């Protein structure tokens, strides 16, 4: 790498740290757009992280030295998605079918998912001799840019546009696809109608239960990919006790920060990613790390205050967010 200024390095690090957040946030936006406030993002990301790492790890073990990097990445994505989707499915059953309180269920899922993720991770660690790690060749596929070196060596735009890991591009694609889906497709309009006013959607012949289940389960899966991205890129493909450092909670805050819009989540996640690691890059004496670490939450509170003050109808959460729906019988 040539001629990298501290600002460029900071941006690169912000993007790296923001990517797990981007997945977490876009997934949660999908869930919340259906009216389901799933606070279990942290849990789902844990499950995704453990499952994704496990998939890559066992795949490499079983393939006996001939592991393909692309297959490992795809398996990690698939299994992390399944892990989160499974967590979200439990949540959906409890809140949609049984109509339990969403906040309580979400918090329970956060705790359950954290524990389940830790269990899987520790199981892998203990059974494989105290250390879960995949080979450096595979790690490189997860952590390095998929673009040719020539492109990456272009000044400034090289590292910025072509020097990121594969999940950055995937995350951007997911966010853009999500935005187009929500705003430009009929299915997206119907889903938003379910989140705004399920009774209206029901009367219009839209299947409320199916929409809520699909959005929550797929959203949970997308969120969970973020957990896997964190483990395989930031944490260096190693399972450790520290886990996700609260990225799941930050994702919930980021959903509010970006006003339930996937495109806002792109720059929002980079901003939050930057705020998260600011203490490593911009050290001011006498200011403890902890103060830096609350910055993303402070920013969220400020955004909440401003959007509340402006009281714009377009910038509000989905109207039925957090409420269970059942057809009223007289």
């Amino acid at each position: 790498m040539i001629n990298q200024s501290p600002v460029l390095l900071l941006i690169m690090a912000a993007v790296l740290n923001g990517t797990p957040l981007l997945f977490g946030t876009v997934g949660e936006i999908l869930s919340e757009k259906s009216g389901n406030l799933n606070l279990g993002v942290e849990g789902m990301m844990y499950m995704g992280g453990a499952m994704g790492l496990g998939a890559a790890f066992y795949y490499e073990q079983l393939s006996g030295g001939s592991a393909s990097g692309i297959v490992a990445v795809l398996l990690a994505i698939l299994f992390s998605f399944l892990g989160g989707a499974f967590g979200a499915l439990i949540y959906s059953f409890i809140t949609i079918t049984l109509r339990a309180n969403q906040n309580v269920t979400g918090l329970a899922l956060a705790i359950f998912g954290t524990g389940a993720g830790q269990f899987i991770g520790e199981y892998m660690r203990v059974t494989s001799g105290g250390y879960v790690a995949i080979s450096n060749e595979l790690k490189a596929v997860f952590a390095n840019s998929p673009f040719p070196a020539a492109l990456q060596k272009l000044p400034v735009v090289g590292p910025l546009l072509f020097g990121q890991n594969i999940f950055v591009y995937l995350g951007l694609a997911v966010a853009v696809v999500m935005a187009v889906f929500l705003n430009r497709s009929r299915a997206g309009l119907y889903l938003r109608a379910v989140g705004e006013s399920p009774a209206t959607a029901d009367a219009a012949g839209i299947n409320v239960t199916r929409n809520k289940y699909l959005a929550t389960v797929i959203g949970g899966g997308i969120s969970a990919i973020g957990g896997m991205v964190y483990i395989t890129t930031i944490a260096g493909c190693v399972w450790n006790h520290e886990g996700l450092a609260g990225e799941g909670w930050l994702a919930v805050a980021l959903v509010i920060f970006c006003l339930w819009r996937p495109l806002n989540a792109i720059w929002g996640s980079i901003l939050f990613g930057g705020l998260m690691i600011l203490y490593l890059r911009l050290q001011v004496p006498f200011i403890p790390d902890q103060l830096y670490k609350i910055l993303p939450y402070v920013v969220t509170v400020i955004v909440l205050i401003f959007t509340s003050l402006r009281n714009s109808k377009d910038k509000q959460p989905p109207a039925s967010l957090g409420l269970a729906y059942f057809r009223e019988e007289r």
Partner: protein
Amino acid sequence: MTALETVHAIEFRHITKRFGKVVANDGIDLTLDRGEILALLGENGSGKTTLMNMLSGIYFPDEGEILVGGKPAAIRSPKDAYANGIGMIHQHYKLVDVFTAAENIALGLHDGGRLDRREIAARVQAISDKYGFGIDPNKKVYDMSVSEKQTVEIVKVLYRGADVLILDEPTAVLTPQETERLFAILRTMKADGKAIVIITHKLHEVMAISDRVAVLRKGQYIGAVNTAETDPQALTDMMVGHAVTLNIDRPDPVDPKPRLTVEGLTVLDAEGVKKLDGVGFTALGGEILGIAGIAGSGQRELLESIAGLYPIAAGSIRYTPDGAGPQELVGKTPMQIKQAGVAMAFVPEDRLGMGLVGGMGMTGNMMLRSWRRGKGVFVDRKDPNALALKVKESLEVVTPSVDFPVRRLSGGNVQKVLVGREIASSPTVLMSAYAVRGLDINTSYTIYNLMTEQKKKGVAVIFVGEDLDVLLELCDRILVLCGGKVSGVVDARTATKEQVGLMMTRVGGKEGA
């Protein structure tokens, strides 16, 4: 309707629907033809809406069959209803606030695919032009008036190609002028060959718009008559089973004296918009002062200001107790105002909202007014319990027990609990808003009588209502609000409905709200 027309647009054959043990519809036979407006008349709980919900796919009949265009049809969902050309405009509009009119109209119509907003808007415009709706397809619903929202609902149904339209209490929230406009549209649609059902319990509207009236009573089909061959008295008899005089008992006020004097009252809402603008009036003890106005003209703000719940920007509210000089209420807390004797039986649109705690029983709700009286940390349940029993007895509240959650009582009983509690505190000023909203005639009369009894005791009753007929028959004077200003005060014994209706829209220059 020609003699040749043998196939009915809709035919109900012996339809029965039960909810648990309650029979909501009992073997109903009813027909509807193209090019006619049928009024479906009945008291609350008579099964009108249930019957129509079976046509629109919300419920499915337990027995009997529905024929559409002469052929039996199984309507299991709103989608099936649309497939059969049937559309219903519900009492509570089913619209998504943050969507545009066009998005709401296209909702649920096709599965998957790209959302072509321009094409939808063009089709909406075409329907709007055909019937003269004049709606903007790209306007967001949250920017719309009630009347515009209703229009969107109607266009939504037409957009789906409905030939049979069902309107559930369409005029409940409209001004007289908006109602006229709606009726004009209904007549245009009738001329276009649509079959229209309008569910209502407002007799004058039945007389004004319908060709035929079908009456339901307690789930039974009583009969249908041609509107031209009947009169309101005959319809009322059919509806309630026994003759109910349309006249509300209204004794002349005895020894009225000023009780509450409001001068120059101005309040602003959170956005700084004037909700009340220089309102002044005097409420007399021993009379019922009616307050009329389009929904949202400042009625709620006025009552809340008097009760001390709304910040007051300017003006004074003076209260004159018996045998004492006037005292200023502005600046006092709700508790102080309450102790001074001003009671408020505020019944908001959702009934439970401000007055009662839904999950508590009658006893618990009685306690909400007396919790300060107890000593120590433990509440006293004995007195509230006795009061709850008394209210239950005297007002005939139908509840399994006084500890039964009020949320699960019917609307009329909830209102009785609320009004009963307020009266029990022996107020000198009693305020009520929309006390009879959604109640059937008999329960409404119970409430009217309660108000009149209080008036006889010398209480100054302030009655915010929406049915002008009731206001004109119940009240002594009527204060008309328009856009937060006093449009005028009329003598309810001599004023006409047209006069009040006009005053409701005149001040402020612009129509409707």
